[in-house]
């Protein structure tokens, strides 16, 4: 496989936190262009740390990491910024200042790509109202365009965060438990829209998910991790209930799903319909 087809290459990547905790322990794997991958595992397994390393927010303490064919930590400042502008991340809690307007929050997705003058002018008058509006339409909150973010509900705010990443037109979309605080219908809608975006533009999507059913339903490739190590890396049709039970063994054999109360896995409890692109 030529390197240029790989979006993410991890080679024995580890990360030890300053307090000595080893969150990620020698993970190696490659994710190709246009792949859609879900990362599942019990809380504390290292999902977020792994994702934050891929987002260049954390620097691996060991091993090498290559993103979009470059090693981010060998780039100069400008190069790192260029790389980062191609990576979009949906955070668990949308990192949007409460008093900002929705339109500004969405347009901020392109700050890394716009020239400085345009970004400054957009503070005075939104540079691309139409663009922001289209992304909000996809999230079904177009009527909130000029609303202030502190007037939105949690679910609406999360959709603004997703709209920002859609607007960014990134080559690699990362989402860190984007729907853990959102009701099931909306979760499905958000994850579905992110998948449609990835398929439509042929970009890579990596999502860490708390709800196993969402992961199995929407993603053709699911990576299970525990204690900072990969337990399995398979197509959802090949993942058995026993494997899931084993993965979540530390959480008293309960596999978390979208229902607010996690239920024990019954044999056919989880739908498996990998979406074919």
């Amino acid at each position, binding site marked *: 496989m030529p390197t240029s087809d790989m979006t993410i290459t991890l080679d024995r990547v580890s990360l030890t936190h300053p307090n000595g905790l080893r969150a990620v322990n020698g993970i190696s794997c490659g994710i190709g262009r246009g792949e859609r991958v879900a990362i599942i595992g019990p809380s504390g397994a290292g999902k977020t740390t792994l994702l934050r390393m891929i987002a260049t927010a954390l620097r691996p303490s060991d091993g090498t990491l290559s993103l979009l064919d470059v090693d981010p930590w060998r780039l100069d400042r400008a190069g790192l910024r260029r790389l980062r502008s191609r990576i979009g991340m949906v955070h668990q809690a949308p*990192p949007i200042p409460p008093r900002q307007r929705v339109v500004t929050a969405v347009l901020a997705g392109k700050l890394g790509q716009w020239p400085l003058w345009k970004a400054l002018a957009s503070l005075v008058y939104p540079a691309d109202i139409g663009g922001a509006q289209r992304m909000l339409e996809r999230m079904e909150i177009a009527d909130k365009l000029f609303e202030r973010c502190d007037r939105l509900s949690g679910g609406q705010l999360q959709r603004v965060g997703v709209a920002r990443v859609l607007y960014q037109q990134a080559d690699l979309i990362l989402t860190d438990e984007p729907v853990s605080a959102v009701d099931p219908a909306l979760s499905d809608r958000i994850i579905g829209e992110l998948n449609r975006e990835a398929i439509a533009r042929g970009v890579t999507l990596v999502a860490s998910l708390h709800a196993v059913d969402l992961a199995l339903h929407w993603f053709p490739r699911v990576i299970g991790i525990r204690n900072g190590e990969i337990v399995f890396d398979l197509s959802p049709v090949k993942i058995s209930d026993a494997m899931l039970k084993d993965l979540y063994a530390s959480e008293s054999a309960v596999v978390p799903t979208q229902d607010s109360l996690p239920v024990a896995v019954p044999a056919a409890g989880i739908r498996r319909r990998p979406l074919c692109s």
Partner: protein
Amino acid sequence: MKVAHWLVIVAAVAVIWTSFAYLSLDLGQLLSAEAQTQMWKYTASFFPPDLSLDYLTRIGEGTLETIAISAIGTAVAALLGLLIALPAAGRFGIVARTIARLLPNFLRSIPELVWAALMVMAAGLGPLAGTLALALHTAGVIGRLFAESLENTPPEPAMALRLGGSGPALAFLYGTMPNVLPQLVAYALYRWEINIRMAAILGVVGAGGLGQMLYVSLSLFQQPQALTVIIAMLVLVALVDGASAWLRDRLVR
């Protein structure tokens, strides 16, 4: 506890007595019949206030000048305060932070009137000195407050923008400013209210506005004019109080 109380009372009386003795002040003499008649004559010389149209026009100009001094002084202070607050909140490293921490403390610990006296020497008599004095003192007050609110503001929004490839300046403008700007504006308006009062009296050291008119008329023994200035000061302060109470009611509602 009781003994401590008595000690405090005795000490207080002793200190007060010593103070009068040290200043060789004789309250009896100050309240003597002769002093009283003199005081009364001096007081009477203020009446009636000079309410001629000509002088009232000049009072109006002085009032406008006072308001202008306070407004420009506060606006400049807000800008300076922002410039101080960025390094003081640690945005440019630890060395810049230490220096920038000391600066606002220094600026605000020197009272406006002392700054005014210094600025009169630097910029000459007139409103510019008063404006600069208010700007320097208030910059210290606002700078410190603003640095604190910058430090207390959540870093995640700006961090997320940095991860999206934006530069530090834009991440600050889009991620941090929306959180702190309302505080800055509210606090600058509040300081403006205080500064109007201050601008009215700064002039007694020659820094323009109503204070300077008061100083000049008292120096020329024009007590009726002085009384007019004092009345104008009281009216100005009362109007500012009323306006700010009205605005606060509206905004808080």
